[in-house]
């Protein structure tokens, strides 16, 4: 824990600590007019904290912030321990007859442990760590763990999708399934990206994460992770899916199809919903239960040859049309030489007429424009009203019932293969991996919204 810089301390607080040669993790005593405090210097929250207070963890376990102006005397009592504390050694047993599952981590801490001395939360990343923190995993599968990178999911780039896709392909050769631990913010985008990049899958690829951090006893992470590993090792399908809580209850894990899933709540455990499709199945009581017809998914087949196309063209923009919007925004995207635009239009797929000129210009410059709907549920239908008809006449590609985020990822993937406008149009309108459906069923909206 101790580092050379007093972590998070700035300005006066930093000066005060530096003067006494005190580092985070050291035990010190501070005398004020009223009190003497003795405790360990703990890191200062970097966000929303001022530079006037030093935070001590007292022997009672409580933290207290002491204003630098009130410090009469500051004394270093004992230097903190260097380096990470050793983890207890866990004998890792490989169980015969238990399937192998790979867990690739990308930055979301699906498992972690707390350092109660300093309050630091350290991620559990190796297979050994995972067995220690979630011991049930050992009964379900032998784990092969790999850390791909450690990036907050909001900072992930299309190049990261490429890395994940390639590493997943590699692990699919050896393991019964691959689990990808991922931050929830952009998990839907990555699921769509992997769905396009990894076609003809022999085995399942399961993304999972947590809405309540894994250091707390009420975390959803452990159940999500075990659910994902059960699905990876036992599910009958060979699809890319997201495995997250189905309800606020710790009872069931949903298996959402990778191109038709969206994070629809900022904080609830059951934030992910399948949109415009049926939920594939659930993991309940340690078993996978399929909820769709067996004809509705690709079956697990270790002999099937994977088709890996992991490239994405990152010069694509996703724009939401709004009242009062003018063509400037789209013009500037064209000026910046973007290769494609996805519009999240209103209603059935409409955009204000103030955008017409800019959209026309995009067509002239061979930039595909794809129309989705900000309604989230439902299908774009651009032949009902005049605005829609005009947009189609100008070459705008109606994305059917594809989610805007999925259309965005798909356009990036298609553009990485061809820039030919008519070929792009054909591929965007073709259902490749379940991202477009033929018919919209009543239950797909009602079931999701009527909880």
């Amino acid at each position, binding site marked *: 824990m101790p580092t050379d810089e007093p972590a998070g301390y700035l300005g006066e607080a930093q000066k005060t600590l530096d003067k006494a040669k005190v580092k985070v993790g050291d035990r010190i005593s501070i005398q004020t007019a009223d009190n003497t405090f003795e405790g360990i210097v703990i890191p200062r929250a970097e966000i929303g*904290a001022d530079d006037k*207070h030093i935070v001590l963890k007292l*022997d009672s376990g409580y*933290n207290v*912030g*002491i204003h630098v102006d009130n410090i009469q005397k500051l004394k270093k009592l004992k230097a903190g321990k260097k380096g990470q504390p050793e983890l207890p050694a866990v004998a890792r047993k490989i169980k015969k007859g238990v399937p192998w599952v790979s867990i690739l981590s990308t930055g979301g801490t699906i498992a972690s442990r707390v350092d109660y001395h300093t309050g630091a939360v350290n991620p559990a990343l190796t297979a050994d760590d995972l067995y220690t923190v979630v011991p049930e995993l050992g009964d379900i599968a032998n784990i092969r763990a790999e850390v791909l990178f450690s990036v907050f999911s909001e900072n992930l780039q299309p190049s990261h999708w490429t890395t994940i896709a390639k590493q997943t392909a590699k692990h699919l050769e050896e393991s019964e399934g691959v689990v990808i631990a991922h931050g929830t913010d952009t998990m839907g985008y990555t699921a769509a990206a992997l769905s396009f990049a990894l076609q003809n899958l022999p085995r399942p690829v399961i993304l999972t994460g947590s809405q309540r951090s894994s250091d707390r*006893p009420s*975390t959803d992470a452990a159940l999500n992770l075990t659910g994902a590993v059960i699905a990876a090792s036992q599910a009958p399908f060979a699809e890319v899916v997201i495995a997250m809580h189905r309800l606020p209850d710790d009872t069931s894990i949903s298996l959402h199809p990778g191109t038709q899933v969206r994070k629809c709540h900022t*904080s609830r455990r059951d934030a992910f919903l399948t949109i415009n499709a049926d939920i594939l199945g659930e993991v309940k009581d340690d078993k996978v239960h399929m909820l769709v017809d067996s004809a509705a998914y690709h079956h697990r087949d270790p002999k099937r040859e994977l088709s890996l196309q992991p490239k994405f063209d990152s010069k694509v923009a996703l724009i939401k049309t709004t009242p009062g919007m003018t063509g400037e925004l789209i013009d500037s995207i064209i000026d910046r030489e973007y290769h494609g635009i996805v519009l999240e239009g209103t209603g059935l797929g409409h955009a204000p007429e103030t955008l017409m000129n800019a959209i026309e210009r995009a067509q002239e410059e061979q930039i595909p424009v794809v129309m989705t709907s900000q309604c989230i549920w439902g299908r774009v239908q651009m032949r009902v009203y005049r605005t829609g008809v005009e947009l189609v006449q100008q070459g705008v590609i109606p994305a059917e019932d594809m989610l805007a985020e999925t259309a965005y990822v798909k356009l990036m993937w298609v553009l990485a293969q061809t820039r030919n406008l008519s070929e792009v149009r054909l591929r965007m309108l073709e259902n490749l991996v379940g991202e477009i459906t033929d018919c919209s069923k009543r239950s797909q909206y009602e079931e999701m919204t009527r909880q």
Partner: protein
Amino acid sequence: MLEAQPIRRDDQAMTQIDYEKAGALIGIEVHQQLNTKTKLFCNCPTEIREDDPHFTFLRRLRPTQSELGEVDPAALFEFQKGRVHIYQNYDDSICLVEQDEEPPHLLDEEAVNHALEISLLMKSQPVDEIQVMRKLVIDGSNTTGFQRSVVVAFGGEIDVNGFKVPIQTIGVEEDAARKIQEKGTKTYWRLDRLGIPLIEVATAPVMKTPEQVQATALRIGQIFRVTGKVKRGLGTIRQDINVSVKGGAIIEIKGVQQLNLIGQVVQYEVQRQVELLKLRDELKNRGVRSGQIKQVVHDVSKLFQKSTSKVIKASLKRKEGVYALVLPGFAGLVGKEVQPGRRVGSEFADYAKFWGDVQGLFHTDELPNYGIIADEVNKLRRHLKAQDADAIIIVAASKSASTDALKAVALRAQQALKGIPAETRGPLADGTTRYSRPRPGAARMYPETDVAPITVTKKRLKRIRQGLPELPEEKLQKFHEEYHLSDELANIMIRSLRIDLFEDIIKKHPKLAVTAASTLETSWRNLEREEIKVDDIPEEQVLLLFDRLAEEKFAKEAIEDLLTWLAQHPTQTVDKAIQDLGLGVISKDELKSIIEQIVEANAVMVAERGDRAIGPLMGLVMKEVRGRADGKLVSELLRSAVKAQQQS
């Protein structure tokens, strides 16, 4: 509920305990709900509900590991047994924060202000910056698995009848969910209480007798009450008590709700610890060593096939069994009483129930009994090769439950050789206590990163300091010196439930202070004894009553009659009461002439007895004018009328 009440004492046990010799050291933590508009970390109301909940959800709590791989053993045990928690909710008064489905909002400023006010009253020093902590609590009472808790001030002291009790910390924390019931592996909780702010005051462990503890708790409660910022009523206040004796361990008794039970709990706990130390010494005398107590569980089902014991018959019918454990050298000691009605065997049974999911146990010190006959006990002893000096513990349940239970008993018996195991205990209705779980190690706390720290500025403290209420002893002095209440009446008044009303009255009518005090206490109690519901009278009518008294609309002798009338007509006014009872005050002149008539009529008596006639004459006059004239004035006028008669 904060009124002083004598400690219910078990005189015999009380006189037996020499607290000085036992070296008892006791500290308390008093928690009371703050009366804030919203909960501590969300905007939900702080109300408890009894209507049917609208929906429930189910959760499991996972014991988290520290860096060193330590896990709270009791929490791990519950998790492995598949303990699930069902949380009951109301759509309109509980939000996603209580459900652990949304991060907490900011720390409630109102609660912080209340806590700072209480801190200043106890001369405690507020911290510069309040840091929100997570204190791990994995029994399900918090949906998160931790309780959010802050310290707002350190140090300070309170004066308890001249004895200074140091304060260690003053803090605020979230109240827990309410446990509704436990059914098998399911625990039902209601989330209405979760998140209500609690003020927590912890004293240093310096108290030595039950009386000191009870007085200290009363004193803390009084200080809470003078701020007017705590909730009142049963369930709003809870005390945790730490008790240790010389040579023992710290025992924490959590959640004593009745103030008048505290002294009793302390007394019984000290008694228990003293008895456990005696047990240890007796075991040593007998030469019992820890290694002799083995965690070996015997299946003795076949010895009890024909048993008439209901418990055993039921177990065998369920295809379970009867299991036994031998405790070498324990004969006669398992039946030893440690608290009234609780024996060493009860302590063993607590462990068996907690760790083994069994209903209870039998031990040979109490057998033959409960349908188990002497022949069965003899056979059991022979079968297990147990000596007369050994005790045998029996449970009737499934093999795994029995094994867990009896192993826990063996461990507890080993601890008996060391003395007093550190435990968290829960109070029973009579003041005795029951084992509830092992005492968790140093509280596992880490920062609540979802809530920003709060700076306590000098300006804020100044503002709070300016609005500080008076402490009870300051009031006592004021009542005594400024308002001329007797010591006794002033003392009663500062403990009165109607102190706020009293202060409202004397603010307007300082001269009526003594009358107000005796009305609100003596008259009130007299009328209550006659089952007149004086508490039903609206406060504003009581205030008005003193306005009218000050205006001399009636005489103070009529107060009880007026209160009675008002209690019977709670929607009516004092003016109506005065009218209805015919209490209009007679003028001085009228009074004078009434008195003169009576004196004249009794001229003979006046002539014979002189001044001694005043007493009987007073009675005659009062009979005529009661409630319509002031007694003092009557006596004055009567005196001069008698004098005039004598001179004529």
